[in-house]
């Protein structure tokens, strides 16, 4: 166990799985960086440095730079996954899924089903996501609701370094296509990360704290903000549970319902766009299956239904913060059930 950044934890996961299994290969734009140049090799190690050092350790046959043609190389990852490899393919920003969704949605996700269970497609698609880096509308989306909507995909949204590592290892070993989304503002986050190899099952929520007054569900960068809110509320004597489901698909419905039932008051803090988003998805689950236990409306704390703006003053207003989460919890606490 030692302190590592989210980035380093991911890098370690890739190293360990590539060392353990020859079939694991890594594909993406600039994942080494410098091909064809007269300077240093592996100059980038990916746009965010996550794949740095893999080239030196595993060579260019297993660490493949690509032209800027996401459809072809994401599709190639899917085709390779059908035929014996276990590719980890990176698209730099999840926003770029627009140019290659077909290979994910209609190909990788559906092979096993369409072909009657005759094959597996063990690939991982890694991408950064999220707002807060002043990257504007085309480089800041969350988009996991899109993937969550598509049957056949698994979707992982880690919130801290040790989860990131364990979930990535599990994703690489998983025989289904996995979308693995890394919030760009988490890369420098430091945490305790075991040095050894470990896998965290997909579909198991992590409970960060238990409090009986209300539950806050959150993914990715929102988890820290939920914790922050919980700390503030604790000072006022309001004890909230904070639950990070970690994967949106499969979803740990059991833990979610358990906490919804136990606390009866629910806030879902999510960075994705609100319409047909994850906050709505979890809310609807609870409204159908834990209705009886609800003591208050289920509150969603999300950005508005707008693209992500560039200017700091706007982007700060866009993203839900701890204050908005705490406020929602307070509103749910105040709510008095009228007699029906």
């Amino acid at each position, binding site marked *: 166990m030692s302190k590592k950044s989210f980035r380093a934890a991911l890098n370690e996961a890739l190293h360990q799985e590539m060392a353990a299994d020859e079939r694991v290969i890594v594909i993406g734009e600039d994942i080494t960086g410098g091909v064809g140049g007269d300077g240093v090799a592996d100059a980038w190690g990916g746009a965010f440095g996550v794949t740095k050092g893999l080239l030196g350790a595993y060579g260019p046959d297993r660490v493949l730079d690509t032209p800027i043609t996401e459809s*072809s190389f994401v599709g190639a990852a899917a*085709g390779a996954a*059908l*035929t014996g490899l276990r590719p980890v393919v990176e698209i730099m920003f999840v926003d770029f899924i627009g140019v290659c969704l077909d290979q994910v949605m209609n190909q990788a996700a559906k092979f096993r089903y*369409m072909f009657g269970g005759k094959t597996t497609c063990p690939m991982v698609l890694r991408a950064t996501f999220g707002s807060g880096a002043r990257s504007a509308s085309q480089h800041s989306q969350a988009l996991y609701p899109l993937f969550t909507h598509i049957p056949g995909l698994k979707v992982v949204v880690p919130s801290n370094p040790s989860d990131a590592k364990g979930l990535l290892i599990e994703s690489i070993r998983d025989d289904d296509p996995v979308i693995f989304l890394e919030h760009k503002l988490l890369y420098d986050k430091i945490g305790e990360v075991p040095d050894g190899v470990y896998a965290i099952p997909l579909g198991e929520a992590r409970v960060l704290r238990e409090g009986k007054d209300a539950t806050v569900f959150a993914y990715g960068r929102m988890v820290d903000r939920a914790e922050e809110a919980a700390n503030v509320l604790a000072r006022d004597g309001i004890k909230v549970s904070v639950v990070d489901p970690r994967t949106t698909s499969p979803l740990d419905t059991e833990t979610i319902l358990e906490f919804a039932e136990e606390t009866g008051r629910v806030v879902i803090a999510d960075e994705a766009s609100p319409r047909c988003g994850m906050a709505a998805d979890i809310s609807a689950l609870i409204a159908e299956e834990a209705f009886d236990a609800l003591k208050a409306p289920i509150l969603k704390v999300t950005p508005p239904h707008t693209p992500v703006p560039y200017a700091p003053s706007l982007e700060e207003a866009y993203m839900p913060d701890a204050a908005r989460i705490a406020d929602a919890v307070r509103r749910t606490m105040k709510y008095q059930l009228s007699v029906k």
Partner: protein
Amino acid sequence: MQLTREELLEAYRTMKKIREFETRVNAEAQAGRVPGSTHLYSGQEAVAVGVCMALEDSDYIVSTHRGHGHSIAKGCDVAGMIAEILGKETGTCHGKGGSMHIADFDVGMLGANGIVGGGPPLACGAALSAKTLKSGAVSVAFSGDGAFNQGTTAESLNLAMVWKLPVIFVIEDNGWGEATSAEFAVAGNIIERAKGYGMRAEKVDGLSVSDVYESMRQAVEYARAGNGPTLLHITTERFFGHFNGDVDTYRSDAHKADQRKNRDCLVRFRQTLISGELLSAGELDEADSAIVTEIDVAVVAARAAKEPDPSTLTTDVYVDYE
């Protein structure tokens, strides 16, 4: 390279099998027994057969929406195929896929594809597996003239060159993408477009199974030797409308009659075999009737087979789906 009598007979058999299969699929469709729609391959048999004759079982093909011919040529079981098309549990995909999603991994058939241009990236991936795992296999992407325009195809040509992949792009140019002519839709020239990527490219007469085979054989040799991809631009004929419900009024009756009369690859091959005294009419007739019987048995069995049980609706979405 000279083909042996046995090889020629086998090629003829497979072409005939495809033709007969499609004739029966069409009849089943007209009788209302095909739940979905199908895209018939009739007229293009020499392409699938010439291409697949040059491949081993361990080589890969990635197919299209018009995939029956490719599947049969690569060795898929026709009984499973027809059952699949009729939506039965005995089908190749247990009824989940239908005509457009037939796949058989045991013979290297990685799947038909309902998305035009969906296949070439996948074929690059299969070639990447072959290269990385040093299996010696090659991979083939079948695409139509219409699919050739898709960005995915263009990207795949580039990627195949950049990664020097053992992949062969087989462009089956039947002159039409649905009701739109290639003359309208394909700007410039397919061979020149491939050569623009620095790719080895060759135009082939798709009415001649031996021409297709020979060009393909060389492309496979080139790829196995580690030299990278080839594109074959193979001209061919689509006898039916785009799909079984297409009345095909955009081509004149004269054109269609001429096609059947003068540009039928199966008829040509038969004539060549007989006139070259390679095989006798009797031998070919015998092959024909064996095939008719085989397909008939398959059709009858498929009709009698059960529909998949509704409980299987939610299986095989994930490996560990519950």
